[in-house]
């Protein structure tokens, strides 16, 4: 079991308003699964992804990642687990504009203190796998949306993570590019990578093995 949550809750509080984004979520994810989380805008799916990706902390409840209780961890502890185990793909790609494609892909390896000769090997392997070698020296602004997302996917897998978290990976892409990215993710899943994806598109959700529906912060179907 990679992920196990129990009564996972997230409440946003301002001076006057309290919003429950997630309401006592019980969720588990097994190795090798490709799960899609769906729901309308504002249902809490991105919030769930952020908490499962340890980018945010829950307000209440338990979150066990690879058997370890991480719900109360500090940012530095979470960062350590993230870089060792997780890969991320985002709707707006989130590549670093000042770095080339090669350098963007290499970044997780640098943070994991991978020696430089190993880094070179891994980056080149991933570039080849995703057919991006000819773009390795380009900057993000020189790429199309589809190419940027492909680079982002490459970055997410270079560290051979236990889990890839994808937040609306096709949200900023046209239909063709969207399907291309989904095919890439499906292939990675076939090769053994566990994927948790958030999407509002049923068509794209169809690439996943199972679908969870979220509504008003609660899981309505699994």
């Amino acid at each position: 079991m990679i992920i196990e949550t129990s009564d996972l809750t997230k409440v946003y509080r301002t001076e006057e308003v309290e919003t429950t984004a997630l309401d006592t979520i019980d969720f588990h994810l097994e190795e090798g699964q490709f799960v899609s989380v769906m729901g309308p805008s504002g249902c809490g799916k991105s919030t769930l992804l952020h908490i499962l990706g340890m980018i945010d902390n829950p307000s209440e409840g338990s979150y066990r990642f690879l058997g370890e209780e991480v719900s109360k961890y500090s940012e530095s502890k979470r960062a350590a687990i993230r870089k060792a185990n997780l890969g991320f793909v985002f709707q707006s790609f989130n590549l670093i504009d000042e770095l080339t494609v090669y350098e963007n892909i290499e970044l997780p390896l640098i943070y994991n203190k991978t020696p430089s000769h190993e880094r070179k090997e891994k980056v080149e392997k991933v570039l080849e796998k995703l057919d991006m070698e000819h773009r390795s020296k380009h900057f993000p602004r020189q790429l199309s949306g589809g190419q940027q997302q492909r680079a982002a996917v490459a970055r997410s897998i270079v560290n051979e993570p236990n889990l890839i978290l994808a937040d609306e990976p096709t949200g900023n892409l046209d239909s063709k590019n969207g399907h291309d990215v989904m095919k890439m993710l499906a292939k990675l899943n076939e090769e053994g990578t566990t994927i948790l994806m958030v999407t509002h598109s049923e068509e794209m959700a169809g690439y996943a093995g199972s679908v969870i529906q979220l509504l008003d912060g609660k899981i309505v179907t699994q």
Partner: protein
Amino acid sequence: MASSFLKTTLRNLYREKMYAMINIAGLSLAIACCLILGLYLRSQLTYDKHNTKYKQIYRVVNELNISGKIDTFAITPQLLGQMLTEEYADVKGFVRFFIINQKVLFRSGDKAFYWDSSAFASKNVFDVFDHDFIYGDPKSVKNERFVAVSESFARKYWGNENPIGKAITSENFTAKITHVFADLPENSHLRYDVLQSDDIPFFNDPEDANQRRQSLWNPRFHTYLLMQEDYDIRKFKDISDSFFERHMADLGKAYKATWRAWLQPLADIHYNSDVGYDQPTGIKHYLYGFTAVAIFILLVACINYMNLATARASKRAKEVGMRKILGSGRTRLILQFMGEAIFFSLVALVFGYILVQLALTQTPINELLGNSIALKDLNEPRLLLGMLAFSLVLGLMSGIYPALYLSSIAPLSALVGSHKAGKGSLRLREMLVLIQFIISVTVIACTLLMVLQMRYVSRLPLGFDKENRLIVTLRTADVIDKVPTIKKELLKNSSILGVSLCGDVIGKIEGLMGAQIDNKDGVPEIMTVKFMQVGNDFIDVMGIALKEGRDFSKRLLTDVGNSYIVNETMVKKMGWDQPLGKHIQSGKVIGVVKDFHYDSLKNNLDSFVLLRFSGTQGISAQNRQLMIQYLVLNIAAEDIFRTLSFLEEKFAEFDPKHPFEFEFLDDSLNKLYLDEKQQMELIGIFAAVCIFISCMGLFGLAAFTTEQRTKEIGIRKVLGSSTWQIITMLARRILLLVFGGAVIASLMAYFAMDEWWLIDFSYRINLNMNLWVFLVSAAVAAAVAFITVALQSYKTAQANPINALRYE
């Protein structure tokens, strides 16, 4: 890691060129200003330390207390050094200088020039004071007289030739050059281009015991003692007391006077000396002022960097958030941003260094700093290392807050859209802008007040007429004796309205006499009073108003040596109800003039006496050659050049031996305030730099704020707002900050000027009557800020609303 940081930094720099330029320009200017001021301060704080033995050298200064009136002197009795060395074990040796404070004509062949600085010194001077000899062996002075000249002096007469053995003549005295030394450093309180040994008859020590005792009451020489290193100068009191008791007390009883002396460490003389009859000294609080300015400029530039870096946080939020998501720790991010700041600082160092070279060679800034910075100073290895270290520290200072701020951005910021600055950081940025403007307005206000003070000083009625007054120097008694003839000849020219003799130039009165003067009860008391010898038309020629009595008479020869004219202040201080007829020495007061400023306006008026010039009878042959007097001429304002040519021709006839030497009185008086004028110009320059850097920062900040609010601007325009309303909306907060800052700045400037710069002037502007200066400074700062913001926001405010709404 370092190369990755450098790559990211360079690419960021390229992408955000305008912000990079603003930052680098601001930091470069700050570094250049700090470097210039730093070099200047170093030169000032190391006055006289080029002498290897400076820790052992102490100058003796003394005070005379005559019937309760105390005068302090940097000059001391001729025999003091020798007697102290012979009688007190603490004193290891002495050097004495006789400094000539007037221009001296030196002639060699057909070349003749006046030199401001020449002196005589005891023969061991080169053993104690360091000189960098170009020609001549300093050891040879033990056996022969020396006449040592500076390199500048030698060049003027003999070019690059070795001048040893060449003859120079001064009046009737000819000598051969024995040594040439490199020009004394600017930061030496002793200044001379000609230094001769004092083993000439004029300086012979008196042999007669009575004459020796009397000479102890006649200060003439600057005396320097060689003590042990870091001698406790408090111990010298015992030596001074003992010396007085042994050698001066008996005459002191007769004079109703006492004497005491104390020591000044050599390195302290220029900035910590406050005695009369001294070489020009520096004013310490100017150094504090310049240090404050340097710190201000640095602060303003650092604040710029901090403000711009944090304002642009939202642009970096995505990058920071992603780096954290991908596993970067906070420390790594802090190092990255600190590295950026240090990089900017190092680039700025290079530009700053170039700016300094340009400033020193292409602008008058070094002149304003008294030529105290040599270009070669900039290449000293220690200085270069120091600059590197300074630049690193500057980078750290500028970068620490942005580094901490940016690295604290949560990973979620990368995902939820633009990072919004929290209220805390916004307030801090506004505080930083406020501080910048407080500094700038303070410096502007100080500059304006300095200008007002200098204007006040130049317009203050002096009690005499200074316009169209020419001062001509008369050298040697033979020429002075011709004054009646000279006067008659000159007055034949209708452009010459008046001629009179005077012993000193107004503004530089040095004459001080000890005399028996009637007190208010008519009982004679010994006191010291400032005086000037003058010809019989002096009051008339100078336009001084006579209050009571009469002027000196041409016809009454008894006026010479027997008649005195005093000023109003003396009448008040003496408590005289009836001043006319009061005795001064063997003469009487015949007239009272309205107060006139015989001295710099930095000093208060005191008792002052005019006496008729007594002529040259009885002056020794030697002293006749050294006599100097002045003619003051009232000339017509029209066709001054023709009048000057006439005078030059005439004086060539009267005195063929000396080139015509003249100065306009108002120029001479302006020189009294030269230091203050220079301070004012310098502070003005640095004020301009401060406000320039502040504006650059404001420009960048305004650019960024406008960019951030583009969508809001678009919506407001759709709803009907005009361009002008948009601009004022964007500028409103800044203007509020500037006005707030102006209030604080006004208080700071008021205090600074009241306690610092104006304190040197006995006659000064009333700050409470000039509060408008603070309003003007605030208005200038606000106008500059508004224009800066408006320029930046105009384009966005003018744009089509749809472009703004499409922005996101």
